[in-house]
């Protein structure tokens, strides 16, 4: 764990706080809160995205996750933690998720929080109820923190602007915008095996256009000094990616894997995509799939946010072989989410 030592001096700074809501959004022009909601005055911590998170805060969060990760690695029963005793966390999953939801639920339980999970099928928190109604409900139920997953980019930011000061918010993935805890757990996994990420070459393959994982990872890995290459077909790579993200873009794998220190395959969400983006999974696999042959030509470690379409993005060997970080990512996920909760309330 020596690579963390350089950053041990980092303390939780206030710079990680989200900015105060702008008058255009939060007020009706006369300084009154919109629709009598309390509104956020910027005095609390939220985790909305990586883009606006300072590097120091990122490293602090990863460092905080270390002790939790070590516990998960051990064979002993996990210690009963109480730092969130008396706190209630609501997991609002407007969009279906299994892994992320369970990971958050475990993190909340292991820190001693009371928690509830609302999923689309189990609640009215889908169509019909407005986001502002959701804010009112959260306030009335006296939740201390909400974890939000939504199919529309920007929903966590909108909710955060209107939530009262005592309710923290964690973005658990919004549209194609951000998935900050995924970014953090990926970086923590990479740092464990690669050490300092400065100058490391990282290749991200797949559907960049629709991927919040890609965006959070790009922002985060760039802040840590890594050189990033995005690979995917023109149909799944935004035209402005190179300029906006400050990365290299290419449309075939070519020799990009040869020099790579790490390669991240993104999930192809073929179930919700029209055939306009890809002719077939087979064709995708032929061109971009990480097969045994392709992996044998590189020493890069392999990541995937899951769930994997085995035989499409990754072959079974690469997915669970010695260089795969896939299960480490899952373990890191719980630890990072515990760290985020600890940080929010500290």
């Amino acid at each position: 764990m020596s690579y963390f030592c350089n950053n041990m001096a980092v303390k939780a700074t206030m710079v990680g706080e989200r900015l105060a809501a702008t008058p255009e959004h939060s007020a009706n022009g006369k300084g009154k809160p919109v629709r009598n909601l309390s509104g956020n005055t910027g005095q609390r911590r939220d985790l909305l995205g990586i883009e606006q998170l300072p590097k120091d805060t990122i490293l602090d969060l990863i460092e905080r996750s270390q002790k939790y990760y070590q516990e998960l690695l051990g064979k002993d029963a996990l210690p009963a933690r109480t730092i969130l005793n008396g706190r209630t966390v609501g997991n609002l999953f407007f969009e279906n998720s299994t892994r992320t939801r369970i990971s958050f639920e475990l993190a909340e339980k292991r820190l001693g929080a009371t928690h509830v999970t609302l999923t689309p099928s189990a609640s009215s928190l889908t169509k019909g109820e407005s986001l502002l109604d959701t804010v009112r409900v959260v306030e009335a139920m006296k939740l201390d923190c909400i974890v939000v997953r939504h199919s529309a980019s920007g929903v966590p930011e909108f909710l955060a602007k209107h939530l009262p000061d005592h309710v923290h918010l964690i973005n658990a993935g919004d549209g194609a915008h951000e998935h900050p805890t995924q970014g953090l757990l990926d970086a923590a996994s990479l740092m464990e095996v690669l050490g300092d990420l400065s100058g490391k070459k990282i290749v991200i393959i797949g559907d960049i256009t629709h991927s919040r994982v890609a965006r959070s990872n790009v922002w985060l890995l760039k802040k840590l000094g890594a050189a990033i290459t995005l690979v995917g077909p023109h149909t799944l790579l935004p035209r402005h990616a190179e300029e906006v993200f400050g990365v290299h873009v290419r449309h075939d794998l070519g020799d990009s894997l040869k020099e790579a220190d790490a390669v991240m395959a993104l999930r192809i969400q073929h179930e919700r995509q029209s055939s306009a983006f890809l002719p077939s999974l087979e064709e995708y696999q032929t061109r971009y799939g990480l097969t045994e042959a392709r992996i044998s030509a590189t020493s890069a470690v392999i990541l995937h946010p899951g769930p994997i379409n085995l035989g499409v993005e990754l072959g079974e060997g690469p997915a669970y072989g010695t260089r795969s970080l896939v299960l480490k990512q899952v373990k890191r996920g719980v630890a990072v989410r515990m760290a985020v909760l600890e940080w929010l309330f500290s």
Partner: protein
Amino acid sequence: MQILLQNVHLVDPVTKRDETDLDIEIVDGKIQRIGKNLESKGEKRNLKGAVVAPGFFDMHVHLREPGQEYKETVETGTRAAMSGGFTGVCCMPNTIPSISDPFVVSYIKEKAKDNLVDVSICGAMTKAREGNELAPMEQLFNAGVRMVSDDGGAVRSAEIMRRVLEYAKMFDLLATQHCEEHSMTKGTAMNEGKTSTKLGIPGYPAVAEDIIISRDILLAEYVGDVRYHVAHLSTKNAVRLVREAKARGAKVSCEVTPHHFTLTDEAVEKHGTQAKMNPPLRTQEDIEAIFEGLRDGTIDCIASDHAPHASHEKETDMISAAFGIIGLETSIPLGISRLVKPGILSLMAYVEKCSTNPRRLLKLPEIRIVEGEPANLTILDIDKNWTFGEDDIQSKSHNTPFLGQEFTGQAIGTINHDKAWWRD
């Protein structure tokens, strides 16, 4: 009514008169006399050099009546028009029910009678704006409609659009298109560009607008001798396509909104859903092309696309929020601040695009500031510096990104026949 407007700067694009230090006497809704140092026994108003122009006309507004009176009504919308400096508006047909039946035309006319603001009505091009069957254009024409459009969306089928143009030609209706290739814009919420890439918001590419404009221009030229109008264009290629069509002699015209010559898609990061419109805010390059199109006459009209929405329809995320902003009360301030003051348009050219040209396209009587003519005037203080606030809004809805914005220029009065409104 008898009133003497003293010390005015008369700007009239029809007579090409541009003259300061004039007095204008209005008696019983008519311009009685124009001259220097006139005497009159009625009310006197010293306008201290304010501009008096032919009444401004906004050819693209949504009054939301019938059907969505919670957003706006004819009464509140025309009040916003009047205090925004307009003596006439044309309301778009995406009401509930839509204006594809002459009965709806009469309903709106009834609501709008005895109003200072004249309300023209745009009929639908296809039945219920569904794009499948022609709207009863002759009946709509007989009810007073001079422009047809399925605004809010484009006519998707090229075949139907061809027939719309052929049929509209018989009545010389202005066939107006909201240009959007819907197969490319499903689920989108802003311009496809750097900001949408960063925010992960599905993007509406400029080419989706341009494709329909080029298709329609080709169709209009094929049909021949039909008047085709591009509503609220927003891209540099749209300006080029219209310019080239005009050069070939096609009867093509277009309008631009103040927000499309003011804001870029970067405004989404600052203003969120108040910067969500259709077509979306584009880029600085597009704004520069729009400026050039205004200068060289490619762009005929400035129209606000006044689109009122209730706060619950805007106070949400970008994907589910409604498209559009109110615009009647910020159109003139933006026009003067962004076009006249920086010298992109002369005052005369600006007035032409806000009054003369839209009336001509809608075949409305020409407004001239000449003795004996009806008084139909917009009065502007083009040097007034002020900040736009909630209290300046007469519209029923308050969806605008311009609250708190500093402007130069404001309408201070509107006169239409025997009715007058003054800001003070």
